[in-house]
């Protein structure tokens, strides 16, 4: 009888350990860890009027009382300068994220932010060089290259991890959203945001279609 109890205890301990291993493997940062059935998904399309394509729109969620501080990912985001353009042109990040600015061209490039949210100049450097900068304030930061004045990129610093960037066809998908009512907002370099209320329930996949119009 005693042996049976000991065996049950060992099996139970092994079960717990394997469960922990499974969880850690799937969610190493502990960023989500939430059971997908406990969260929802927003998917949809954004149509940008009178534009070549509907990409580079950042869709993001805001909610009163939403937890304000989310730990940024340890992994850096990258903004590359390649063939005289910034790649990507639009980079949404979570507040506190560090961005690596890389030069992949033979020509020298500069990184310069003239805006109100963040104002800095990282200098000018050549092929293969990388400099980093951590963005600690939410908002839009315009990135320019002083050597090539036509180059521009936008870093959108967001307070919550619930955001997505549209592909050229306007499609986007946001996952692991806790149930609740949010305001879905958008950012585009030329279009105005069209906020709308979204209520998401456990396990729900909500489809949303937006059309953006030019800022006046």
């Amino acid at each position: 009888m005693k042996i049976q109890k000991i065996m049950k205890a060992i099996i139970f301990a092994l079960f717990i350990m394997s469960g922990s291993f499974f969880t850690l493997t799937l969610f190493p940062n502990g960023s989500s860890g939430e059971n997908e059935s406990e969260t929802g998904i927003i998917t949809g399309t954004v149509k940008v009027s009178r534009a070549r394509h509907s990409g580079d729109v950042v869709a993001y969620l805001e909610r009163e009382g939403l937890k304000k501080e989310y730990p940024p990912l340890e992994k850096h985001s990258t903004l590359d300068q390649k063939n005289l353009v910034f790649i990507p042109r639009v980079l949404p990040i979570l507040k506190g994220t560090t961005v690596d600015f890389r030069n992949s061209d033979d020509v020298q490039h500069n990184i310069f932010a003239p805006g109100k949210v963040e104002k800095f100049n990282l200098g000018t450097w050549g092929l293969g060089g990388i400099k980093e900068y951590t963005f600690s304030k939410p908002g839009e930061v315009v990135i320019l290259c002083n050597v090539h004045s036509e180059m521009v990129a936008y870093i959108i610093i967001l307070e919550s991890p619930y955001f997505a960037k549209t592909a050229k066809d306007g499609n986007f998908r946001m996952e692991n959203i806790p149930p609740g009512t949010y305001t879905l907002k958008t950012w585009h370099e030329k279009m105005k945001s069209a906020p709308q209320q979204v209520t998401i329930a456990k396990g729900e996949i909500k489809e949303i279609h937006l059309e953006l119009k030019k800022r006046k």
Partner: protein
Amino acid sequence: MKKVWKFWLFGLFGFIMFSFLVQTAQSLPTFSRKFETSCSTCHVSVPKLTAFGESFRLNGYQIPEGDEKYIKQKPTSLGAEPWKEVWPNAIWPGAIPGSFPLSAWIMFDGKAPLQGANKELIFDFPHEVEIFMAGILGENVPFFAEVEIEGGEVGAEAWLGFYSLFNSDRALNLRVGTFEVNPLPMFFDHLRLGKEHYLYNNWRMPGSENNFRLRGGKPGLELNGIVGSRFYYSTGILSPGGGLDGYGTFRFKLGGTPYNRSAPTEEAADKAIGVLPTGFWVDNAFELAAFAYFGKTDVAADVPDSFNRLGVGARWTYQNFDLAAAYILGKNNDPFATGATGSEVDSKGFQIEGSYYIFPWLIAEARYETLKLDDTVTLLDQKNTIVGLIWMLRANVKLVTEATFSNTSDNILNVRLIFGF
């Protein structure tokens, strides 16, 4: 004096109106279109070049490290690359620009005397129209053509280059055509910052049938090249006036962007971290140059005038400052066809020019230049002082306001508006 004030008021009004009118101007010349990049990538103030622009020019209108990946407007192939392997049983493959490589620069001039009895204002709208065609016909085959229409007269320059001969990595290049010799790069008249031509590049022997002057296109052949990244040479034969002229130049650069690179060396790169970026024109460097030109032209039937011009120059660029100076000597053996011994005319020229970038769109310039021609008596002893402001209203729209003070003519206020597309 009243008219001068009117001139200023008109100029100011025009400046303000133009600033509003060109809000939507997006026109960019040939290379801007090809690479989808701004004029300021190559020019600090059109036509004066940045260090990158100079490398681009010296490498035959190609980005030194290879420009294929940067070209946004793809060229039309005149034969696939593997045809090179088939040569001589096939024509060597080439390419033509994806669209007709046409650009234009248009200049409006205005001037008013600052002294003297004549107070007339002169508007010369347009003073000059320049039409350019430039590009490459496949790798290492650059071409350039310019048609100038000025005062009812039409002039043309055109050349074709064959660069990197014998796989020399641009150490041995050939140019054939009509081109402007560039005796001293710091005083290359075609690429000057302000309006006034450089005195020594522009002068002709007064009263002589020898009409030679350094500036302007001359037909001929030139060999040039970059040796060891910081040494550049050019030598050529020209036939501007029936005779055969020869010339040689060299230049050497310390610091900054090497001639065969797009960027400064790691040590010279701007590592400054601050709120504002340093200017795109910054290339901290020191450059030395020298040239020799030998020519001969008939000034009367069977009476030749042999002449030479020798010069040295230096340029120091540091942050927002740009300072250049040159000393040039010349000799004409018989410019007035006297046939007598001792009829030589010596020329001596000195020029110094400084500029300062107040803002990326506002540059102050100052120049002092002298030219002295000595026969048995002094034929000419000219001293010019030029001060001005260069306003970049857009990357492709430039306003020059320049005052010229001379001991041989009336002092003049010049205004030039240039726009290109």
